[in-house]
């Protein structure tokens, strides 16, 4: 039963990922008319999750320090081939970016709702009498 609490960790990472991704989409949109600007994005969540978790070094001695996980952020960039390239070398398609941003917002909503639901499930378990 307690295993289910892993969901908090996963959802927290997902929320973190989505917030960082939104920052990247904002960069793309802000630079939608900047000559020569290339679109960038994060890797898909499952792939990004694998790279963000530090492999961790084995502590084989009492004085070895173990790297703290949770310090790393999703900053693994991924140059993407956009829908179009303007004559100025700008690769941002506003339509494409807005679709991505809308998807991102929806996923964020989903993740936070999931977290909320999970809390209420835990509460339901705790409040059971008899």
């Amino acid at each position: 039963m307690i295993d289910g609490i892993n969901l908090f960790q996963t959802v927290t990472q997902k929320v973190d990922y989505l917030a960082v991704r939104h920052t990247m989409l904002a960069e793309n949109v802000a630079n939608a008319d900047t000559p020569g600007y290339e679109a960038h994005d994060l890797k898909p969540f499952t792939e990004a999750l694998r790279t963000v978790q530090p492999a961790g070094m084995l502590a084989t001695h009492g004085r070895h320090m173990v790297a703290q996980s949770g310090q790393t952020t999703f900053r693994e960039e991924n140059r993407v081939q956009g829908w179009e390239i303007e004559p100025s070398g700008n690769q941002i398609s506003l339509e494409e970016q807005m679709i991505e941003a809308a998807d991102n917002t929806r996923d964020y909503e989903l993740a936070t709702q999931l977290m909320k639901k999970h809390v209420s499930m835990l509460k339901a378990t705790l409040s059971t009498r008899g």
Partner: protein
Amino acid sequence: MDAISATMKIAASGLEAQSLRVRTVSENIANANSLGSAPGADPYRRKTIVFEPQFDKVLGAEIVNVKKIGTDPGDFSLSYDPSHPAADAQGYVKVPNVNPLIEMTDMREATRSYDANLNIIEQARGMAMSTIALLDDR
């Protein structure tokens, strides 16, 4: 800084850049008929605006910055108006190199980009609100 605030700041830089672009366009349109006053003098020269990405160390992200407001080196066209004070010896007056069609297209594009940045802010706000809603004890 947290990602959501950073998102808003980046989009705000986009808003600022695009509104400066609209300002440049309106300068061009307003001066589309600004001629010289001395014989053979140059009329208003069209202004252009160039953006560049700028890495913001605080945000750790690239915001947009106005690189320069330059001028369009394009040739002036001539119109025949011998009675005008700016007319040269042959009676021709130099007319600004402003094409209203180009300016209007530019303005539409700037407005569209402005709206997109505004949408990003709206979405970031929604994300922050749904995070805050987690505190709701229901």
